[in-house]
């Protein structure tokens, strides 16, 4: 667990980047720091691995003040991913991934084997191993950046706007890849972004910061959408909060009516109650001319239907 205990960062010129931040980052989950530029989210992240030291308060990593640990030693135990990947241009991909294992004095063979394993794990062709960074696309470089951060199997991963510089389609696939990896690895991840949609999509917990480095709200994404703490958070979340919140409500508790004669998945919007959200069910109803969302199972068999009125009722909770 990472604990921010009244952390402040004030620069010599008087600007306050982070102001009395207190927060707990739970183990094995993704905590997202989100906010507009100048809100101190990156500074907060960089204080965890001592790229920046706080001017007040303490950051505890598993109960131990990080400033008591030698920076280099501390950092070797924390994965770090940045926006432009920051790969070493002069080294092949496999050696880039193995950077920290090499630093930790692993045997060369073992380090490279580990790098190859991670290369596949982040969804890259093993043939990429022999290439140099310039031969990879931005999205591929970013995957290598993630693999490199995971190389020495650190329990904590810091990710500073890692997907901001790639195009939307690649970003979506990288986000899904991260969620998939996390479901296997259960790392303690601190993720910084300025994109509230990304925050809500990836975070188990979302911390919204406002300009001047003050914490505005910490909550699970669904709670954030349903109960913003104040006008700033409400505005930052943007429009369509009501609809977006439904994305976090599972559809499995909906009461299904038996399908009327002649209602088939063809010509109707469908959803799968076992996996989809209320938002998908409502969308299915809106796509159907008769306003009925058709529930189907994994094999496409019709389980029943739900009407618009029932869906809106369920959405109101």
């Amino acid at each position, binding site marked *: 667990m990472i604990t921010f205990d009244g952390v402040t960062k004030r620069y010599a010129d008087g600007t306050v980047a982070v102001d009395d931040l207190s927060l707990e980052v739970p183990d094995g989950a993704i905590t997202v720091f989100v906010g507009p530029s100048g809100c101190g989210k990156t500074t907060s992240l960089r204080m965890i691995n001592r790229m920046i030291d706080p001017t007040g308060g303490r950051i505890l990593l598993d109960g131990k003040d990080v400033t008591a640990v030698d920076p280099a030693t501390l950092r070797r135990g924390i994965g770090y991913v940045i926006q432009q*990947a920051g790969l070493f241009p002069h080294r092949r991909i496999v050696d880039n991934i193995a950077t920290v294992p090499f630093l930790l004095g692993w045997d060369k063979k073992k380090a490279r084997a580990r790098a190859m394993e991670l290369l596949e794990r982040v969804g890259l062709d093993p043939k990429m191993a022999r290439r140099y960074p310039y031969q990879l696309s931005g999205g591929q470089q970013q995957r290598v950046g993630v693999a490199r951060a995971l190389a020495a199997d650190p329990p904590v991963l810091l990710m500073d706007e890692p997907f901001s510089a790639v195009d939307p389609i690649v970003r979506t696939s990288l986000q899904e890849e991260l969620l998939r990896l996390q479901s296997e690895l259960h790392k303690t991840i601190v993720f910084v972004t300025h994109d509230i949609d990304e925050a809500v999509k990836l975070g188990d917990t979302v911390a919204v910061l406002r300009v001047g480095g003050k914490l505005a709200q910490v909550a699970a994404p669904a709670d954030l959408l349903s109960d913003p703490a104040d006008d700033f958070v409400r505005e930052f979340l943007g429009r369509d909060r009501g609809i977006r919140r439904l994305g976090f409500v599972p559809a499995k508790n909906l009461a299904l009516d038996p399908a009327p004669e002649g209602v088939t998945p063809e010509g109707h919007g469908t959803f799968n109650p076992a996996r989809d959200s209320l938002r998908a069910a409502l969308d299915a109803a809106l796509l159907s001319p008769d306003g009925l969302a058709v529930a189907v199972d994994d094999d496409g068999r019709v389980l029943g239907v739900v009407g618009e009125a029932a869906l809106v009722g369920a959405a109101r909770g």
Partner: protein
Amino acid sequence: MNWLIEFFGSAEYWTGDDAIPLRLLQHLEYSFLAFAIAALVAIPLGLLIGHTGRGAVIVVVSANAARALPTLGLLVLVVLLIGVGTLWPVLIPLIALAIPPILVNTYEGIRGADPDLRDAAYGMGLRGSQVLFRALLPVALPLILLGLRLSAITVVATATVAAYVGLGGLGRYIIDGLATKNYAEVFGGAVLVVLLALAVQTLFTLLSRVIVSPGVRQVR
């Protein structure tokens, strides 16, 4: 053409004090000595200033001074002040002029390295010197080699001029030939100097092929 035949065909330039191989060796010896000393001073200094960001003013001043100071003036002044006779009075201006190209390019190479690379290197837990030698230096290598090449060329050229204040080497043919109006000797000497400069240029081009990582070569 006639001058070339006259020069290279004359036995006078193949034996004794004025033998071409001897003059060439002298030229190489002085040049290498000045170049090596300059590199030993300038590379560490450039790395240090580039990495710490302190003392950048030295780099700027030395670059401008090296460009503006007239070589010949510097040579005659230093040699007159220190005294003729030994090699050092001539070597000092040679070294002084050889330092700035290496210093400037080493500094620029380290300073100009991608800030994300620096950030990532520190973030992974490399220590200061590891960041310098494992991340920044390999990326700066093309520029450092450019600096070394420019410096070597400067030294070869300056050593030629330094024949005027008594240094041996290929410049002797040009200076002595001019003094005695033996234009075949001037011309032959000049051709030798040009060939040497081209050889140095080629050597550094080959060197950078060998020691710069292909991953870095492509980026620039």
